[in-house]
């Protein structure tokens, strides 16, 4: 209470306290979020660099820039970095960390020290991944399937140990978020007055806590298999390599929802703010997130339709796969319905909202195709699958991540960016993305298997087109890097609420003060009650 009187003069969280030590040892969720953001963006750049390199090799159907082994290492590093270092932590750990306490009207997350520990565990895990990169990078693919991963001579242990450690960072973030949402909400904010982004982080955290330990133990078993042998994946002793796939996908399929659920939360925030209207079907949106989280645990077997599991198991996994698609479809329709009768402000974040809708729909429709058993048998292991999950992960999560970043950028850094260049970059990213990945749907349908270093000459023109697309995509991100950095230096100062948002993070300064709010907020209305504001 004493803080309030001189809160206004204390300066923003960016400058108070000062000095690099105050950053490294901070327990402020905002600073931790910013540090995560930095590492996540670096990881994305690194993973993107590997993607550009491997697409370059694919310009030619035969050996061209890299050897087969180097190519295999490139796609492994691309996948592992993008999944474990970038996309899993992307929205929750950076935007979520920064925004969740603000949106709940809290001073911090429930366990600030644990939050900092999560960050350093993340850095520690990243070091192992980087070490793997420079010490004979793993060539197993990011899925680490046994028995290839237990027999190859590349540095699999370092990479899996990295992913193992990163898993604990993710688990602890999940524990923190669940406790925060249960216990730290502002006075008057009951569960159904919570912003949908918080709901989506809640659903995400449930998956993080329940699924990640299984991945952790699986990777640990893989490491132990390589060092002392455990035998359970070793067919020579009577072990079963396919058991690894079951364990792996028990995590990694829910992990797909760790990646997409927070993105859906961002989308709900974007649509309500930029349409200046209550989100359509709030309750359905909240419950559908939870439904997705629960069903996501029961569909892992759809990665094993051609691995020789029983027909009955295949049928059950197929039907559950369709079920998990339904809540996602509901969300898309509800976002559309939110736009009805709104007042749409077509700013850069909203362009990413639109990109998400378009690309996520394509990803969803092709997901239906892959869920159908007979079609999956054909498409499994081809470029069709590659294109599908890039439409969901990149077309979905990355678009929402960028959209969210642009939406909250003024709040996080207190600066505005160039709206013009924002739109230009969005255009290049959208166009480039479709060039790269729509082409791959055709390649896959024509029978081109994935993870191929060489390919039949007949596929060359499509591959070349896809590679050119990566350059357009890369250009888009380059433009974005320039104008965002420029905004940090030269950007005009941002007002507290540049978009007219209603959630609590817009009720404090940009950037916020150290303890978020000058006086503890009290909530007495729904999160998107624009009617009340606009009369």
């Amino acid at each position: 209470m004493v803080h309030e009187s001189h809160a206004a003069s204390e300066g923003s969280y960016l400058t108070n306290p000062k000095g690099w030590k105050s950053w490294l040892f901070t327990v402020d969720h905002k600073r931790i979020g910013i540090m995560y953001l930095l590492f996540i963006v670096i990881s994305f750049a690194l993973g993107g660099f590997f993607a550009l390199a491997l697409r370059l090799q694919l310009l030619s159907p035969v050996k061209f820039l890299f050897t087969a082994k180097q190519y295999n290492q490139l796609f492994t590093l691309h996948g592992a970095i993008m999944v474990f270092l970038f996309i899993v932590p992307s929205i929750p750990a950076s935007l979520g960390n920064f925004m969740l306490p603000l949106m709940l009207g809290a001073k911090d997350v429930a366990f600030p020290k644990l939050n900092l520990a999560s960050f350093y565990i993340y850095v520690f895990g990243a070091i192992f991944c980087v070490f793997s990169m420079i010490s004979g990078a793993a060539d197993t693919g990011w899925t680490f399937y046994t028995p290839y991963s237990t027999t190859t001579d590349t540095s699999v242990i370092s990479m899996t140990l990295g992913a193992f450690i990163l898993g604990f960072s993710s688990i602890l973030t999940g524990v923190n978020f669940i406790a925060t949402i249960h216990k730290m909400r502002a006075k008057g904010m009951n569960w159904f007055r919570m912003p949908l982004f918080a709901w989506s982080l809640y659903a995400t955290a449930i998956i993080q806590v329940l699924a990640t330990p299984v991945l952790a133990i699986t990777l640990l078993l893989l490491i132990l298999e390589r060092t002392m042998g455990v035998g359970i994946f070793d067919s020579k002793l009577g072990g079963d390599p396919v058991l690894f796939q079951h364990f792996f996908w028990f995590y990694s399929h829910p992990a797909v929802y760790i990646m997409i659920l927070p993105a859906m939360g961002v989308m709900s925030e974007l649509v309500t703010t930029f349409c200046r209207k209550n989100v359509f079907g709030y309750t359905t949106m909240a419950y559908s997130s939870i439904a997705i989280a629960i069903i996501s645990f029961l569909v892992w077997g759809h990665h094993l339709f051609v691995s020789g599991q029983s027909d009955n198991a295949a049928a059950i996994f197929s039907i559950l796969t369709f079920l998990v698609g339904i809540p996602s479809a509901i969300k898309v329709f509800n976002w559309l319905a939110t736009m009805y009768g709104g007042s749409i402000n077509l700013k850069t974040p909203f362009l990413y909202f639109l990109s998400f809708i378009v690309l996520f729909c394509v990803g969803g429709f092709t997901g239906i195709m892959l869920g159908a058993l007979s079609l999956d048998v054909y498409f499994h292991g081809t470029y069709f699958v590659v294109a599908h999950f890039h439409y969901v992960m990149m077309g979905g999560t990355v678009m929402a991540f960028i959209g969210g970043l642009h939406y909250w950028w003024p709040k996080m850094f207190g600066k505005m960016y160039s709206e013009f260049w924002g739109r230009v970059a969005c255009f290049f990213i959208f166009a480039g993305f479709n060039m790269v990945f729509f082409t791959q749907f055709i390649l896959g349908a024509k029978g081109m298997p994935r993870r191929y270093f060489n390919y039949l000459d007949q596929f060359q023109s499509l591959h070349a087109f896809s590679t050119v697309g990566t350059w357009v995509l890369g250009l888009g991100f380059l433009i974005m890097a320039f104008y965002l950095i420029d905004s940090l230096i030269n950007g005009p100062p941002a007002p507290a609420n540049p978009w007219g948002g209603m959630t609590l993070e817009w009720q404090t300064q940009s950037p916020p003060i150290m303890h978020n709010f000058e006086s503890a907020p009290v909530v007495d209305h729904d999160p998107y009650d624009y009617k009340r504001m606009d009369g």
Partner: protein
Amino acid sequence: MAKEVVIESLMKSGSFWFPEGATSITNRVDGLFYFILAGSIILFVGICATLVYFLYKYRRTEANPVATSNITHSTILELVWTIIPLILCLFIFWWGYKDYLSMSTPPGNALEIRVIGKKWLWQFEYPKEGVKTLGELVVPVNRPIRLVMGSEDVIHSFFLPNFRIKRDVLPNRYTRLWFEAERTGNFQIFCSEYCGDAHSAMLATLRVVTEAEYKEWLKGGSGASDEPLPELGKRLYTKNACNTCHSIDGSPSVGPTWKGMYGHNVSLVDGTSVLVDDAYIKESIEKPNAKVVKGFQPIMPAYAGVMREREILALIEYMKSL
């Protein structure tokens, strides 16, 4: 028999999306795809049109500064877009499951062929006929074929795009796959589960021939008796997957290059050296890990019992010519 085997192009044959099918079940699989595609396009166009219309109609202007609608939810509407996709999905599930079952249940009278996947080649065995081949699966048209598949090392996956079928090939159990070709031709076989350096070179050919040709082929085995040795060797070099690991242009790959190898001494991993002559080549084909050239791993699969004497001679002649 010596004529060049030309594999049907996947890109040039068939429709915009799919390679030409070689069996009637592909029509049902493709049909499901087109059904979902049509539904998706209708929905997608609908969603995009709605987006564009809303963007125009409800754009923020001086006249439209705030939302004009206060609607927060509509249970009926939400039920509609929950139940309709649900019904569609269940229908799609049923279609896919039905075809999946018929694709995984072979008829009883099928011709059984054993498939062995190993780094990085496909080997086929006809147990009743006692024939073994490498990189080439020959089957009669209009007869159900059952493949019983196993791996000697890591997981592979046997993929026949023209038949829309695929099954993982595992080291610890046998998996099965069946098909019935309804037209003759040469079709592409891929490995579609990542298996290491030469994964993308782990290819094979499916030759669907008439019943008479098949009988003829069984009698003659895989080698043609009248073909000149160096030409046969050149053909075997790719057919038996030698080319996945051995180059002929002097560059080292997974294994040593063949160029300029014959008649020279090579150092071995145990420190000794050996002259590359007919005996050494024969031994290295049949028992490859007996004398491994320095700088390479002992990973070559043994070809003992798979290649005939004349085929080995053909490869030796081919190596001489390089």
